[in-house]
């Protein structure tokens, strides 16, 4: 649909207004039904997992004292179709068949009507292994001495080149090299994963569950059962947070529940408890980044060589695309004439790492923004002057050769953020005070951008579809597979559709994501829902209005009541009215998958985050005292939801920086409880101040861009830059716990 047909925004438009969250009342009264809340009759399912990191399964023993004949037991042999989780590669089995490649790998499934008996049975299964040499360390995997995946342990490599990096080293006045590390991070949605399945040959497979991407689950179950598309139906129930953690893993749980349902002939529910969810499901990829930078004494960066390595765990899953986003963001919002980024995702014998808000970018941006502060120090420049020398400006090209023309000035954003936080005065004051005090204060910042939507040609290949249908009672319903997981999809879609129809948002209903009834609008990931899918919602709504008008049911200008009557009359006369629109790539976007050059993203959100910290040298604890998040995100559709996304992301970023450490032992997380995996409480976080700048993006609905992942990128480098200011310690690894800061300082 053409933009021209969108009427100018009226003062009554819900766009930009803080309307109540669409599903708010049912969530606030305990009436929202999450997967474990549904009325359920059937069997409970449970997963028996590997206790070793790598080995051959020699024997499975079913212990004494359990009425095994009452159980449904499923192994790899019971799989009716293909035993792989369809995603990108086909290397991960639903159930280990002969070999295991990571701790907690699913081996067999049990179902029983009694939860307590079931748990006892799980503990009574003993599996014997012939152990194989595992690899737990990213460096060891890179060396390739022990091969655990493919020929070389490498899931994916990219080599991104701009200019000629080799020509530049001799011209540089200074070459600065360093290495940075980031740890794994648990998504820690408060609703753990869960699925209910019904499966039989006649009706096919139906799944209800907590998920971000119904069509990913759909895709994964097709080969598992070897059924036709219409026989597999996936329904998203209310979902208690995702953050990427419910992007790919739910396919596995759905498959497991379906296999048990298939064999038992009964409905089966699998709901993970917290301990299982934490140890068995995905985490953010740990990373190691090496920077070698050619600079001039005046601060100009001539070239950057970056080696970016992520640890993918035992199977390929989404590592290649996580690596891609991390690689593209590795050179940041700077104009660097010569760049080489050598990126690899490698295998280790840990549970596969997966999607988590930011998707590779927080890792590479942490390295870059810490590195720039170190360069500034070595050049005896301020961090802000160094960045101002190198910020990318409209008309200049990114590392992938994308010409930026968004009308956003990073320099102006930086000035605003520093002024707002009284940065210069504080820096002076803290420097003065710190030598006298046991509690050292610091202030630091990070500058970054984050691409909205799928990378490169991703959106074109996805070819997402959205529908809007008119109901017989005179309302319109949005049909999309984009899920509400707390971030506000329902509310934002209703605003966008209502704006296009010139009605209030109450007029618009959101259809529950259900693959039987909604088209595939793509996964709910990659900061794409508002910008990409929202644009389709807008187009479909325009289509509804135009159809009603062209067919004479609606005048050129109309009241809400007139639209209601028009809808009722149309349905009465003609039956359903359903408009489905498909994504069309905006003109001027060009991406080459082979060279990895071109327009990596349709647009970017731009940000400056400023952190103020205190470090208590008695205990080496770091506390964030104040946090400013200033960003340009295009048009803000809903100010409260948008700020809520930023605040929540910053909170996760603060956790990533100084609290949340996954402790590993032989590939297994050993602190998999909420007591020992430390996410911040309300007493730990500072006031998080959120400021927006709005430069409308012409291809987003009413100018909106994506913003969901952005806030994950900036906190860690901003905080560690502030810690460096406070203590003089150049910490290059996160999470930074008091123990680490003590060791660095003593």
């Amino acid at each position, binding site marked *: 649909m053409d933009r021209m047909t969108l009427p100018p925004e009226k003062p009554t438009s819900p766009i930009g207004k803080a309307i109540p969250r669409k599903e708010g009342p049912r969530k606030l009264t305990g009436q929202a039904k999450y997967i474990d809340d549904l009325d359920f009759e059937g069997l409970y399912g449970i997963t028996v997992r590997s206790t070793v990191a790598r080995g051959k399964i020699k024997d499975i023993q079913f212990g004494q004292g359990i009425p095994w004949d009452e159980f449904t037991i499923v192994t790899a042999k019971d799989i009716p179709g293909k035993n792989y989780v369809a995603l990108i590669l086909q290397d991960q089995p639903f159930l280990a068949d002969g070999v295991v490649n990571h701790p907690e790998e699913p081996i067999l499934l049990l179902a029983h009507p009694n*939860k*307590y*008996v079931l*748990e*006892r049975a799980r*503990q009574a299964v003993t599996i014997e292994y012939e152990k194989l040499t595992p690899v737990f360390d990213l460096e060891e995997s890179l060396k390739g001495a022990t091969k655990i995946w493919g020929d070389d342990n490498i899931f994916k490599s990219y080599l991104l080149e701009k200019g000629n990096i080799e020509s530049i080293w001799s011209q540089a006045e200074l070459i600065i090299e360093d290495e940075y590390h980031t740890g794994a991070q648990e998504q820690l949605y408060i609703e753990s994963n869960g699925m209910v399945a019904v499966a039989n040959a006649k009706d096919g497979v139906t799944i209800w569950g907590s998920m971000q991407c119904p069509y990913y689950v759909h895709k994964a179950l097709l080969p598992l059962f070897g059924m036709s598309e219409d026989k597999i139906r996936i329904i998203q129930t209310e979902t208690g947070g995702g953050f990427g953690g419910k992007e790919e893993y739910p396919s596995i749980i759905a498959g497991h529940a379906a296999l048990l349902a298939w064999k038992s002939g009964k409905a089966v529910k699998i709901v993970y*408890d917290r*301990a299982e969810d934490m140890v068995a499901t995905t985490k953010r990829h740990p990373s190691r980044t090496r920077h070698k930078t050619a600079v001039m004494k005046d601060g100009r960066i001539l070239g950057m060589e970056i080696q970016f390595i992520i640890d993918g765990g035992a199977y390929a899953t989404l590592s290649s695309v996580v690596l891609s986003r991390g690689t593209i963001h590795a050179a940041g919002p700077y104009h660097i004439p010569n760049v080489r980024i050598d990126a690899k995702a490698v295998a280790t014998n840990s549970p596969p790492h997966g999607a988590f808000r930011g998707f590779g970018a927080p890792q590479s941006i942490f390295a870059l923004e810490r590195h720039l502060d170190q360069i500034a120090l070595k050049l005896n420049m301020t961090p802000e002057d160094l960045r101002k020398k190198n910020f990318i400006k409209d008309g200049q090209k990114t590392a992938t050769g994308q010409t930026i023309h968004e009308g956003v000035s990073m320099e102006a954003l930086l000035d605003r953020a520093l002024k707002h936080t009284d940065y210069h005065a504080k820096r002076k004051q803290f420097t003065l005070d710190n030598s006298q005090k*046991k509690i050292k204060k610091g202030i630091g910042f990070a500058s970054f951008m984050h691409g909205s939507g799928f990378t490169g040609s991703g959106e074109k290949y996805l070819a997402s579809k959205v529908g809007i249908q008119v109901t017989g009672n005179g309302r319109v319903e949005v049909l999309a597979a984009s899920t509400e997981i707390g971030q506000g999809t329902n509310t934002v879609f209703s605003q966008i559709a209502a704006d296009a129809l010139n009605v209030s948002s109450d007029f618009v209903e959101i259809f529950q994501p259900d693959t039987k009834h909604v088209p595939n609008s793509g996964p709910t990931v990659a900061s794409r829902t508002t910008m990409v899918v929202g644009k389709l919602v807008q187009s479909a709504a325009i289509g509804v209005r135009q159809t009603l008008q062209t067919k004479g049911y609606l005048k050129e200008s109309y009241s809400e009541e007139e639209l209601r009557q028009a809808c009722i009359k149309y349905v009465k006369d003609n039956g359903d009215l359903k408009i489905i629109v498909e994504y069309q790539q905006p003109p001027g976007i060009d991406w080459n998958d082979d060279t990895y050059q071109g327009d990596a993203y349709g647009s970017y959100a731009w940000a400056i985050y400023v952190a103020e910290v205190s470090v208590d040298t*008695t*205990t*080496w*604890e770091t506390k964030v005292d104040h946090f400013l998040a200033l960003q340009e995100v295009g048009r803000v559709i809903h100010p409260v939801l948008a700020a809520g996304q930023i605040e929540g992301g910053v909170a996760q970023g603060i956790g990533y920086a100084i*609290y949340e450490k996954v*402790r590993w032992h032989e590939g297994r997380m*050993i*602190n998999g409880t909420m*007591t*020992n995996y*430390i996410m*911040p*409480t*309300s*007493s*730990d976080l500072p006031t998080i101040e959120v400021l927006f700048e709005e430069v409308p993006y012409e291809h987003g609905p009413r100018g909106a861009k994506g913003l969901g992942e952005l806030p994950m990128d900036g906190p860690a480098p901003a905080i560690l830059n502030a810690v460096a200011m406070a203590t003089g310690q150049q910490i290059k690894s996160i999470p930074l716990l*008091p*123990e680490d800061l*003590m*060791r660095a300082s*003593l």
Partner: protein
Amino acid sequence: MRAFVPEYEMKTPENLNETLQILARHPGEWKVFAGGTDLMVVFETGKLSHKKYLNINHITELKELLVNEEDVMIGAGCTYRQIQDNPVIHKEFPMLVDAAKLTGAVAIQNRGTIGGNIANMSPAADTPPALLAYDADIILLSTKGYRVLSYKYFHQAYKQADLRPSEIIMAVRLKRNQGMTHDYYRKVGTRSAQAISKVCMAATASVNRQRKIEWIHFGYGSVGPIPLRAIRTEHFLFQKELTPELIKEARKQILTEITPIDDIRSDAVYRREVAGNLLVEFLESIKV
């Protein structure tokens, strides 16, 4: 829920006397269960090996908090909430209020009891360091009568204490007017709330006009197998003049007295460093 719930028993005796009778009749068969904030966590993981519990959470004699002229008697069943709300404890034993406020958060403080905090015998518990620094007594009760024990002798080894199967902890006794003029409580936890301590120190002291130390007690958590009263460091400091040199020496002394370990929350090196720093922070804060 990983426990086999149906195999656990819980019965609710009418009163204190009946509770003691049951414990005396079958020593070790039944264990008492108060606010449940520790036991239920273990239960959930399927690792609660004992299966039979006597619910004592309703027993009013254990919930009394008596302020006498000489002492304050805190019934073992008093919750962290009750402790925080008591004005005399607030005024005279503020470290106990700090400890209570830093144990879990509101919902835990409403249920968890001081008796439970002691009986759970965790070296990382938050109230024991304060109780040790106040030189508290505990009162143990069985059908045979009372037993009063200085709390510093209660804990014996990891998860072992001077508590017989037929006994329950009746109360904690805090002596009033002991004359210490300085106190210090600091819990260094994994975060600001809902945290388990990495190191915790409570201390009380009195120093005369000549800066001579006339009273000094240290209670430590998470630096060894039991909540530690640092008696050797106390002896070292007692009757000495508080000087910067002495503080340095005391720091060395405390490091010989603690035996921290590496675990899932921290490591021994950090614990030693911080245990020493807290001691220094306290002693340096003493102004005459």
